[in-house]
């Protein structure tokens, strides 16, 4: 008995050595040119080769040793763990998980004040706390919430109606440019333009939705991608209106129902007798985007219970069955496009008001891809999952900007920002391979008999619509 176990262990070890060597050889082949040499321009603008064999050796070593450890230790350990797990009884959901949405909501509502409190305690003065919190409220809070809102908006199209849209950023762009143009040319206020931007985006959604109604699955995906690119290219080239790649700057800020956030005597700070600081505007923006995002979530939750929401989900599950039950697929698809686009438009006008500057650079395909990735990584259709995915992916990449201590390890030339998108791409792959159904794979049923039971991810199907 002990003997067979030993030989089993040895054969695993031998296999691991072999696979490690193979992985090292593969890495040598893959990275020999692209890592082994670096091309740089010299003074005459000609390319010269620099050799980097040390770095190549590190890459090869990491691949070989990593693969060896994976086969020799991690995989057997994982197999053993899974064996134990399968024996355990299916557990009831923990209270934490059940009340997670409430806890998260509470945290979101108090986030700016928590940050200010912590930083005030840390810095020893209220002003220090206010100024220090600017970065956290803006870079983390607002930035993440914009993506949460966009992902929740796209979730209506992809997660509920099952229509794969690769050009969602186009509606974001429509919202941002309609606010930017109408506010700079006609001086209209943010609160008037916010619904207008949403309506414009929804109209664009219907316009783009009409021709692609007959298309399905990947054809739909590529045409929406093409529309996204067309809108971006028009924004770049129609310089008379959009000023092309220079973008539109000096866009008016949002106001709190007419009270501007300016340092003057009529400003927000002066009216309330508070010390002057830019942080109030950021906190206001934070609550504004939080409100908009929650509005998206609320509308999504309500719509799911209405006939139109059920029609979307029926469309996602099976288009033919849906049609034979008498559901008008044309209006169903168009409303999904329009509703999703409308929230994209809201987010776009918020984006323009926050930045004070819009340019086509902000609306590239990569943005669509990131938003779609958040929707899928979060587990399609699950609002909480999507919010978690947005916080992890966007917050994680934003955190990389803050990692100053890495400079002490790798030397001063090391810039973590450079690796931001590389790590983002790799994280997308790793998360997807690890959890193909996303963070929250289970789905709450929209219609049920007597008792609400979670639908396991194995039973949910994504349509080809």
């Amino acid at each position, binding site marked *: 008995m002990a003997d067979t176990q030993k030989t089993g262990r040895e054969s695993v070890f031998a296999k691991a050595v072999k696979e490690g060597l193979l992985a090292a050889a593969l890495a040598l082949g893959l990275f020999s*040119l692209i890592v082994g040499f670096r091309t740089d321009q010299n003074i005459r603008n000609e390319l010269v080769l620099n050799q980097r064999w040390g770095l190549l050796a590190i890459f090869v070593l990491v691949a070989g040793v990593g693969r060896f450890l994976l086969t020799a230790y991690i995989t057997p350990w994982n197999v053993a763990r899974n064996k134990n797990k399968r024996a355990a009884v299916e557990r009831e959901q923990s209270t934490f998980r059940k009340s997670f949405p409430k806890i998260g909501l509470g945290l979101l509502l108090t986030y700016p004040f928590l940050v200010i409190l912590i930083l005030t305690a840390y810095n020893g003065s209220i002003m220090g706390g206010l100024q220090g919190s600017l970065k956290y409220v803006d870079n983390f809070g607002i930035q993440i919430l914009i993506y949460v809102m966009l992902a929740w908006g796209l979730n209506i199209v992809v997660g509920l109606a099952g229509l794969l849209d690769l050009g969602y950023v186009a509606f974001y762009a429509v919202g941002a440019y309609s606010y930017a143009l109408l506010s700079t040319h006609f001086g209209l206020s943010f609160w008037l333009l916010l619904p207008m931007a949403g309506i414009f985006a929804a109209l664009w959604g219907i316009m783009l939705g009409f021709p692609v109604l007959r298309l399905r699955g990947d054809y739909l995906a*590529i045409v929406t991608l093409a529309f996204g690119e067309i809108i971006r*290219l028009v924004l770049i080239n129609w310089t008379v209106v959009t000023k092309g790649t220079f973008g539109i700057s000096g866009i008016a800020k949002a106001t709190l129902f007419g009270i501007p956030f300016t340092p003057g005597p009529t400003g927000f700070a002066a009216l309330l007798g508070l010390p002057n600081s830019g942080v109030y505007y950021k906190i206001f923006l934070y609550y504004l985007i939080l409100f908009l995002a929650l509005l998206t979530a609320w509308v999504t939750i309500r719509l799911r219970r209405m006939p139109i929401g059920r029609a979307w989900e029926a469309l996602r599950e099976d288009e033919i069955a849906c049609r034979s039950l008498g559901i008008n697929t044309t209006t169903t698809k168009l409303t999904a496009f329009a509703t999703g686009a409308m929230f994209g438009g809201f987010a776009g006008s918020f984006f323009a008001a926050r930045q004070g500057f819009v340019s086509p650079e902000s609306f590239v395909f990569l943005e669509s*891809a990131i938003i779609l990735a958040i929707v*899928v990584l979060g587990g399609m259709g699950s609002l909480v999952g999507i919010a978690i995915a947005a916080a992890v992916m966007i917050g994680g990449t934003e955190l990389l900007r803050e990692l100053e201590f890495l400079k002490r390890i790798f030397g001063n030339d090391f810039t973590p920002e450079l690796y931001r998108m*590389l790590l983002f791409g790799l994280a997308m792959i790793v998360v*997807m391979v690890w959890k193909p159904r996303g963070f929250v794979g289970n789905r709450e049923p929209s219609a049920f008999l007597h008792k609400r039971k979670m639908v396991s991810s194995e039973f949910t199907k994504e349509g080809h619509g």
Partner: protein
Amino acid sequence: MEYFIQQSINGLTLGSIYGLIAIGYTMVYGIIGMINFAHGDVFMLGAFMAMIVFLALTTFIGGVPVVLALLLMMIVAMLLTGLWSWTIERLAYRPLRGSFRLAPLITAIGMSIALSNFVQVTQGPRNKPIPPLVNGGIGIYGTNVTIAYKQMVIIIVTAILLAAFWYLVNRTTLGRAQRSCEQDRKMAALLGIDVDKTISMTFVMGAMLAAVAGTLYLMFYGVISFTDGFTPGVKAFTAAVLGGIGSLPGAVVGGLLIGLIEALWSAYFSIDYKDVAAFSILAIVLIFLPSGILGRPEVEKV
């Protein structure tokens, strides 16, 4: 008329490159029904490999005949890019086979982001110019139309590769395995075809063609940058869809058409809107011919 012919030649050259990339998209789609978003970046990687091989040749050996240099660039780029594609498929796509439809699409988008940023990190963000490899051209007798030698190289290389590729798909065991996997993967597996290996080989073949396209692109434009994967990639995918995705001749026809549309639109209308024209024509064609020009209409069984 001369202007038209000249522009058509330019368009066909561009279209050949798109066609070579489009084959990779259409083959992968035909077999596993997945949009390989990273393919455009695999093309860019191939061009970088060719660029580094060229520099290595000029630095370490010195004056190498152009034909030999081009051949070496192509072969090394093909081999290494094929290896990259094999690894990508193994790591990012194979674990998700049989998972739901969007999962491999997301890893492909992630791979695309990761690849372009990997090249940016390792090779630097600046454009990489190389000196012109092939100079001059010949005029067609009695007209002002000229064909640059590099355009001839592109068209000839594409024609040779397409012939070899046609032979591979239609006359060899591997090609037969690929075609059977395309028709019915489960049945092919039951009949003793190693489906995983066939799919891997499909990715490798697509990447090799993309690497050649990358080498030709580098030779034609003389410059490459880490962002150059996206636009040719999207155009080539557009070409594949236009021709009817899953159809190999369709990919070539679609590529040539997209190249022609782009060149003629830039010549007669406005160069700024050439990409808009290509995408609009894609949308229009798909609305009236939802399965592309040469694609089989999708029959749905209920």
